[in-house]
């Protein structure tokens, strides 16, 4: 009955980035009461994220991973890699929100605070060493995003998005909990490392109960990363939510979902790899097929990007299915690339929104190249990157996952993925076609802003540089898995 844990300095220092995130979030809540210019709040939010980024980067080179808070929180390179994705995501999102939220008349401090809290939730998920903490992080993230999705409460579709997201999210958490409960019951623990040991010592990696637990967790995580058939919330929520939040959601929760999927499947259930790979294969196929195919019929660009993000989840899954460390590397590599190209695309989407004009229809892009050659060129790059055409980063991402899938013997999956990326090319191309090959219907005014410009510059450069010199990212991803 001894207390086995006492709080120490190393515990606090390990969660410094999370702490920074949360405290800045709290600060923003308070500042909101006194500061009238909401841009300042946003800037402070970015600063907070940057501080956290610094904190993460400074420990990135550490030689060994660290478990703190009584094996609850794990600070390792894997989580750091994901945290960087989260920081980029939140920073980009805040940057593109400046003007947008003002147009939507919803620029208030809570918005930024919630973004930071959601990010904190993701960070906790990525660092979770215990299913319990994983669950809590997930809920922290989820609850924040539910609110953010429904933020524009004067808009029916924002409400509806929130309702759908919330209900289905809660439904899926129930499955997660059931899975956790089963795992706990069988192994007697919720600690990820201990689960792996228990599975090994008890020799229960073939038991149906464990399998059921894993399946339920896959269902729940599959919901977060929008795998078919657990994807159905995604298009509606992406379309209904404020565009900046759509951008945020299309990257953050997805990355977090993959982070925990990788963590749980590889670390806790590593010995059950054949089983869960088998489950994921049909999901991956369905995801790629349904995502690519339905996107073809879309006329709303947010919705189209939603389906596109579903399809991308399918590609990312290939790396996990491979079941090797390299496979996981390819997935996280893909995620990082996806972050840049997807946010880049959403930045252009958001720039079309202006007072009294939604700018979400694909027709709205007609003739954009004529009036805004630069924006169109960037969108073109993002679209080709999402398609996976070299020399953009999107190609590197796809190449790597295909490579690992094939290496693991899933050549047919790679072929399906390749063919459906051709299908997906069709709808990405359509944007390009509208921008470059149609005459403008009416005058297009872009809502530009400095921060958004910076985001575009960074994402575009990243897409091109990673596309041409992928080594930079590859070694980082590699390093983050091996550590």
């Amino acid at each position: 009955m001894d207390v086995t844990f006492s709080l120490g300095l190393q515990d606090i220092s390990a969660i410094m980035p999370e702490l920074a995130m949360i405290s800045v979030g709290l600060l923003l809540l308070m500042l909101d009461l006194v500061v009238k210019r909401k841009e300042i709040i946003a800037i402070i939010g970015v600063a907070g994220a940057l501080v956290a980024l610094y904190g993460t980067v400074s420990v990135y080179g550490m030689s060994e991973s660290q478990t703190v808070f009584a094996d609850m929180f794990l600070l390792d390179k894997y989580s750091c890699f994901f945290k960087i994705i989260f920081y980029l995501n939140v920073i980009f999102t805040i940057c593109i929100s400046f003007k947008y939220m003002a147009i939507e008349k919803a620029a208030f401090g809570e918005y930024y605070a919630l973004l930071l809290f959601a990010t904190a939730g993701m960070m906790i998920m990525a660092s979770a060493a215990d299913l319990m903490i994983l669950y809590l992080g997930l809920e922290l993230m989820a609850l924040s995003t539910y609110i953010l999705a429904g933020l524009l409460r004067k808009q029916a579709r924002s409400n509806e998005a929130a309702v759908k997201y919330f209900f289905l999210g809660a439904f899926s958490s129930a499955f997660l909990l059931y899975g956790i409960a089963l795992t706990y019951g069988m192994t007697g623990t919720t600690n990820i490392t201990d689960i792996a040991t228990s599975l090994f010592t008890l020799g229960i990696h073939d038991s149906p109960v464990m399998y059921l637990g894993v399946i339920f967790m896959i269902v729940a995580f599959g919901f977060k990363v929008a795998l078919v058939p657990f994807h159905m919330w995604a298009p509606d929520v992406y379309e209904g939510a404020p565009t900046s939040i759509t951008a945020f959601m299309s990257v953050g929760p997805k990355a977090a979902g993959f982070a925990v999927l990788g963590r749980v499947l590889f670390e806790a259930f590593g010995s059950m790899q054949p089983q869960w790979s088998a489950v994921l294969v049909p999901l991956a196929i369905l995801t790629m097929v349904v995502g690519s195919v339905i996107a073809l019929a879309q006329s709303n660009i947010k919705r189209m990007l939603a389906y596109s993000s579903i399809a991308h989840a399918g590609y990312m899954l290939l790396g996990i299915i491979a079941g090797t460390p390299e496979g996981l590397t390819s997935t996280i590599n893909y995620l990082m690339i996806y972050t840049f190209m997807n946010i880049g695309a959403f930045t252009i989407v958001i720039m079309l929104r202006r007072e009294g004009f939604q700018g979400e229809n694909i027709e709205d892009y007609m003739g954009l190249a004529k009036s805004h050659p630069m924006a169109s060129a960037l969108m073109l790059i993002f679209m080709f990157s999402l398609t996976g055409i070299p020399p953009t980063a999107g190609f590197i991402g796809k190449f790597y996952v295909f490579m690992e899938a094939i290496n693991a013997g899933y050549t047919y999956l790679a072929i399906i993925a390749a063919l459906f990326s051709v299908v997906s090319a069709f709808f990405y191309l359509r944007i390009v076609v509208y921008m470059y090959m149609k005459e403008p219907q009416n005058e297009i005014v872009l809502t530009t802003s400095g921060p958004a410009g910076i985001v575009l510059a960074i994402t575009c450069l990243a897409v091109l540089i990673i596309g041409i010199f992928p080594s930079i990212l590859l070694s980082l991803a590699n390093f983050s898995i091996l550590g």
Partner: protein
Amino acid sequence: MIYTLIPLLPLLAFIINILFGRDYIRDKAHLIAVPAVAGSFLLSLVAFAGVLKGEVINVNVYSWIVSGDFNVSIGFLIDQLTAIMLMVVTSISTLIFIYSIGYMHGDKGYYRFFAYLSLFVFSMLILVMANNFLLLYFGWEAVGLCSYFLIGYWYEKKSAANAGKKAFIVNRFGDFGFGLGVILIFLTFGSLDYMTVFSGADSVLGQTINLFGYEVDTITLICLLLFCGAVGKSAQMPLHVWLPDAMEGPTPVSALIHAATMVTAGVFMVARSNPLFSLSATAMNTVAVVGGVTAIFAATIALVQKDIKRVIAYSTVSQLGYMFLALGVGAYSAGIFHLYTHAYFKALLFLGSGSVIHALHHAKHDDEQNMEKMGGLKKYMPVTYWVFIIATLSITGIPGLAGFFSKDEILWRAYLGGDLGKFLWFLGVAAAVLTAFYSWRLIYLTFHGSYRGDPEQEHHIHESPKVITVPLIILAVGAVAAGWVGIPPVILEHADRIGEFLAPVLGHPHGHGTHLEEWLVIAVSVAVAVIGWLVAMFMYIKKTDLPEKIASLFKPIYNLLFNKYWIDELYDKIFVQPVLKASDRIVLAFFDAKIIEGVVNGIPALIGGFSKKLRNVQTGFLSNYGLAMAIGALCIIGVFIFMR
């Protein structure tokens, strides 16, 4: 080597004229072309003299195509055969160039005309001077090209454009075989060089090749393929259809290309390849039969044609048939001899008709060549009339003139050629009757009687200028005297100079007959020539209404002949239209647009349609989504846990 200039001079003339003719040279184009071709003629004379002295020249200029073991050079061979051909080509060309100065005077494409003619001379010279089959092929195709340009010279006339195209494409059919023959020669002999091929010919005797499951004698196959080319170029059955249409070109072109030189390329080529042909009886017989049949076949058509140039054109086809007949029975030198004499009198005939056309060029549309609208021109154009008479005497084989000697040689050699030869001899004689008839018919219709055309035009008719008549007179001399180099031994011992001259290349013909037989053959051919003449005279001078009667009496036959056995129509029906229709309706409209494009556009359409259907799954209802999740989870559990 100085002789390289023989082809190069006309080429140079072509280049200069085509590049600068339109803007700078214009109506002075002949000043470039005529000296060039005359220069070639002089050089040819030098070459000929050299060959007479026994200098056979065979030289490679440079390696043209080298690929693996395939190696072909640009190289020239000037031997006895080439020398004769050079003489024929350059001399007649020179005359025709001069003639054209007058004939084409004032035409807006004057420079173009001379440019093409020069290019033609170049091509023809390459053809005859080549020392290997591929270069021969080069010249072969190049003359076809020039023929295309010159036939379609008046491109604004649809018929001219059609005729040019037709000539080229029909020739391509022949070249198809020729080209394959060339390839087969290389694969058999490992070289395309005449000398190597011919010297190795004996060694491959009896070698066979598997052709679609049949074993075929290689040499025979090669010869037949080569002969395909000859059939096309020399307008033999069944590829003769282009030559009459080629009359759409200006008359000097008809004279030069379609009578004197280009069409004889086939004859030349077969003669050139005689070491190969001699080894294959099948090929030889084919050549002979095709020649004989063509000779009579074309002659029958010529009987009833109204267009003056067409009559001569069919006459050309017929005469070419004679030449092939000669080659086929192994009398190569006789064939070449006839080629040589024919060049003069046929050029003369064409140029003469050109002179007539020139005189009548004020006549109404299309009437200038219609013999039914002519008549009585004798008094207006005496020179033309008399050269026409000379040419006709020559072609019909009246003793003493050029045509007599060469034709007689052919018939005699045919007569000696066994049973088949006898048959061919009979064909030849029959053709000779017809030849006499239609040739004299032409003269009577054109020059005798009274003018039947537009009376108002009559006073415009005049004799052609000197620049036209002088070449005519020179050619007339040729038409008379050209045959004197080949007098058969039975008439004059040791006077067959041309046969002896060509013997090193073409060998001596086989077969011997008695003097009596030979005299008999001569007598028969003279007799038939005279009979033909008399019949024509009877029908067109004495009883001018007779032709009409006969025509209406034998209406079907007349129609058959007049419509050239409907061969053009037949080809159109069974080759041209089906191919065009099939390519339009089946290949393009159905196969390409429906089947392939159907699949290509169908798959995206299918996916698109599927997409539209599939998006309905996304109903927008929260509970449906939940249900999908639940069912998804259930399926996974069912499949992976219970069906493991």
